[in-house]
């Protein structure tokens, strides 16, 4: 088995979830690396999109900004933010990736603030950016994040981007498009999905080297467990080679 780090594993897992012929809006960093890896392995016909307007670029290197000129280098389209967001709203975008400071059992995410006073936050983060939009409007949202019980918390300070809100049918009842929502939470320890009915987070795979206790101990809410939990398939040799040599040769992301 190849030697790899947690970030490399997470990127490989995310890449495998992006099927050929799909569309995905990515940000900078790990999600972009996952999409690039997916293209260079099993999904040559994956369309990578950036919220500022770039579509299907031939990326010469990792973008620093989702609006910089790399995001539409030799692209098929350099359009606008409303165009990309409306393409999502129309139901033409399959996947997106989100990150944040806190996540709860329904996949709701906080990237706005820590504290209770919105007007004078204890710690302020950038806010939604396009996160709420993409989480609302793309079919499936994935999260790649390190797992600990501060980040995976019972009560997040601020719901910036919607997961399944309070579970059950509440997301659809709130007005968000039918059939959308969080799909996979990929951590250094495990891969989680969501229960079909309660919409609570449910462990599907356990990463090599971890066990159920590690995973529950590093989560501030009670996790559900799939009936048959398998070990996460570790990165293949060819995935690692492409990731390291072609996708992120300067180790900007996998070197962290």
């Amino acid at each position: 088995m190849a030697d790899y780090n947690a970030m490399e594993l997470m990127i490989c897992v995310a890449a495998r979830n992006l099927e050929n012929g799909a569309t995905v809006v990515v940000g900078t960093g790990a999600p972009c690396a996952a999409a690039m890896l997916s293209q260079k392995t099993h999904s040559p016909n994956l369309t990578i999109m950036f919220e500022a307007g770039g579509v299907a670029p031939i990326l010469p290197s990792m973008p620093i900004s989702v609006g910089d000129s790399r995001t539409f280098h030799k692209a098929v389209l350099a359009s606008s933010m409303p165009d990309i967001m409306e393409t999502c709203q129309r139901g033409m975008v399959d996947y997106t990736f989100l990150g944040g400071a806190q996540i709860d059992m329904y996949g709701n995410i906080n990237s706005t603030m820590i504290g209770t006073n919105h007007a004078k936050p204890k710690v302020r983060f950038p806010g939604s950016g396009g996160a709420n939009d993409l989480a609302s409007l793309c079919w499936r949202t994935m999260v790649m994040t390190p797992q600990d019980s501060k980040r995976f918390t019972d009560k997040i300070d601020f719901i910036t981007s919607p997961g399944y809100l309070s579970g059950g049918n509440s997301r659809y009842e709130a007005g968000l498009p039918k059939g959308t929502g969080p799909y996979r939470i990929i951590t250094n320890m495990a891969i989680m999905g969501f229960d079909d009915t309660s919409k609570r987070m449910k462990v599907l795979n356990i990463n090599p080297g971890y066990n159920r206790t590690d995973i529950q101990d590093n989560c501030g809410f009670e996790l559900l467990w799939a009936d048959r939990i398998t070990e996460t398939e570790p990165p293949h040799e060819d995935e690692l080679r492409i990731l390291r040599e072609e996708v992120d040769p300067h180790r900007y992301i996998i070197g962290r």
Partner: protein
Amino acid sequence: MMNKAVELKQGQNQLFSDPDADKAREFFRNKSRAMVNKVTTVDDAVKRLVKDGDYIAIGGFGANRIPTAVLHEICRQGKKNLAFAGHTATHDMQILVGGECIDRLDIAYVIGLEARGLSPNARRAVESGKIKLTEWTNATLSWRLKAAAMGLSYLPARNIMGTDTFRYSAAKEILCPFTGQKFAAFPALYPDFAAIHVHECDVYGNAHVFGSTVSDQDLAKASKRVVITTERIISNDEIRRQPTTTFIPFWCVDAVVEVPYGSYPGNMPYEYFSDEEHIRQWLKIERDPEEFRKFFKNQILDTKNFYEYLELNGGIARMLKLRAIEHLTHNR
């Protein structure tokens, strides 16, 4: 289909601008649509077009295709109590917060510089409680501008419902009159002033932009007063040679200023890449408020104009380096 008896929520925070379409029309009725020479200086444009207390918005995407010279000049002229559209606001907002120009902030994305990290100074300002904050999202601010560009007072959309982003916004929930579906309604945003940096335009303000255009076409239409800075002025004949390419038409534009390298230290697609060293310098110096004040004074307040600022940061030689990075020829 949603139940009609459902409760319709509304965001609890303040709306910093008037979405009324008839009031905006009254302004636009009197805005000049004459195709006349609008070339001027940054100094003059900011003096004439920005007033204390204005709601302002900046084109481009934070550190990509931004009108840096106008941002600097707003600080230099000490404009105060501005409301600002924080629509992926990164280096543009760093500058305006450095100049202490802002007291109301519509937030989609603020204080961060994307993959580069967070701005300590902008973060201190936003955490201080001195700036009024209302939450939105990137799409939401795009659509608020689009509503205004369309001459409306709102647009419906399908995002942000059910979240605290909605709760701390000034949006409202509505029902579709045809399907009964619940939608979010976003109030039109008609900024008092916008500055947009473009690749080329004629003296009347007919402009070309290449690469992702973010929300700039809607921004140019939605805003009451617009200054365009441009890498280069081209002839009106050149505009007329390819009218399909005209991105901003003259009637949106109040002033045109030729500012080569005008997006520096930001990226200008097809022209030059961002100066990542210079931006890192900002992020580092901002950690110490006192050091940052000196740096900001030296770089912006005490420089006579944008050219002096460029000289201070390496001048043409530096620009050529950034051109090479943009064109992927720097390692050859």
